[in-house]
């Protein structure tokens, strides 16, 4: 449980938000060309990092907008929040 600084609404309790999992997983550009292995990689495989993770969140009980977050999963500390469509910051 922590406080999240929504880029549109400001600081709100985490329970207003829905976690959307790993960020920057791009939908395959040519789905028809994909092998089963590539589909599995896209659909199911996750980094599930212990440490700095890039992820998506949705302010489900607020503005309902999506945004990206950089969070340390070993202590739940939020490092950075940036909008959808923006490039992920380098380490």
């Amino acid at each position, binding site marked *: *449980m922590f406080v999240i600084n929504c880029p549109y609404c400001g600081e709100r309790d*985490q329970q207003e938000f829905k*976690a959307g999992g790993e960020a920057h997983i791009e939908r395959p550009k040519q789905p028809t060309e994909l092998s089963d292995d590539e589909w*599995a990689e896209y659909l199911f495989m*996750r*980094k*599930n990092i212990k440490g700095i993770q890039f992820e998506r969140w949705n302010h489900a009980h607020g503005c309902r907008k999506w945004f990206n977050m950089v969070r340390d*999963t*070993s202590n739940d500390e939020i490092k950075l929040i940036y909008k959808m469509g923006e490039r992920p910051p380098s380490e």
Partner: protein
Amino acid sequence: MKNNYSVFSLIKNAFSYHENWQRAWKDPAPKKEYDTVIVGGGGHGLATAYYLAKKHNMKNIAVVEKGWIGGGNTGRNTTIIRSNYLWDASAGLYDHALKIWEGLSQELNYNVMFSQRGVMNLAHNLQDVRDLKRRTHANRLNGIDAVYLSTEEVKKFCPIINTSPDIRYPVLGGTLQRRAGTARHDAVAWGYARGADEMGVDIIQNCEVKGIRRKGDSVEGIETTKGFIKTKKVGVVAAGHSSVIANMAGLRLPLESKPLQALVSEPVKPIIDTVVMSNAVHAYVSQSDKGELVIGAGTDDYVSYTQKGSHQIVEGTLNAILELYPIFSRMRMLRQWGGIVDICPDASPILSKTSVKGLYFNCGWGTGGFKATPGSGDLFAHTIANDEPHKLNAAFNLNRFVSGDLVDEHGAAAVAH
């Protein structure tokens, strides 16, 4: 050779104030090389080592554990054991475990306090009723004892449940598996550790894995905080940290690690002599032999390795408990804790070979791995020893995420994940 535990040894040791009990397992330094190394000294890992030594005659085995044995999810769960899963593959897997539970204390000469007090699952809406009836039929076709109960029968089996029709989520019925129940989680880890140690397994605690050394497509050994250990076979049973170990070997797994919470109340006199689970309102409760109510809450929806969860998750569970059991309204909670559970997209485990030769994973048990401990150890030992899965865990391979042949127990497993 281990001394046998019996009522006579208990009396004998009472005369020396219980100060001269034999050590249950040694505390060895790691050797340079093992035939097989198990990563993770929880119940599943220790059981794997035990069955490797016992059933597959392997001699040179080590279990490496970064903390102390049974200090992770083995000591953090709500100890519920059942096998009433919907799909054939799951029913086979979990009932295999339940059959081993039934003779485990005798086999290990260690009282794991397995108590077949029954597990009841409640239905709160029409869809629940249909799902639970369907699951009862599926269970019976698979030879698993299951019965469907009416509201009156639920009330008769567990009189403290509020079955009034005017509560927010009224009890419309339920299922009961009488062979299901609970066991003492610490004793399971300790019993397997003692049994494995007796057969020559080295249990190495405070030894964290820092890397997996590969030579091409094969495993060469593991880097640990106690130095490099050479081995050709590595069985990873690291629960919430499985992805961390997989990343060391350059693999990705279909797992997300999330905090799952549980809590216990102050101890009271016997009030509930079974296990009651409610999927729809998310309230699981049983009573420990000490008298504490043992309550299982849900997972948070974000990835975290912090072993603590959000307050509102516990609050939601306690709201549901209070509506179903008004008699608990003045109970005080004693302790609350979290564990990190590794959840698969289909809520079924992975007991599998990998693309790296000699590297095996036993993970993805999510919120319900404790019940499977003996079966998981037995089948994973078979998989490692033969380099092929047993027919009971063949469906739980890593390749199912490529082939699409998932064992979808989300919602079907009588429990919310």
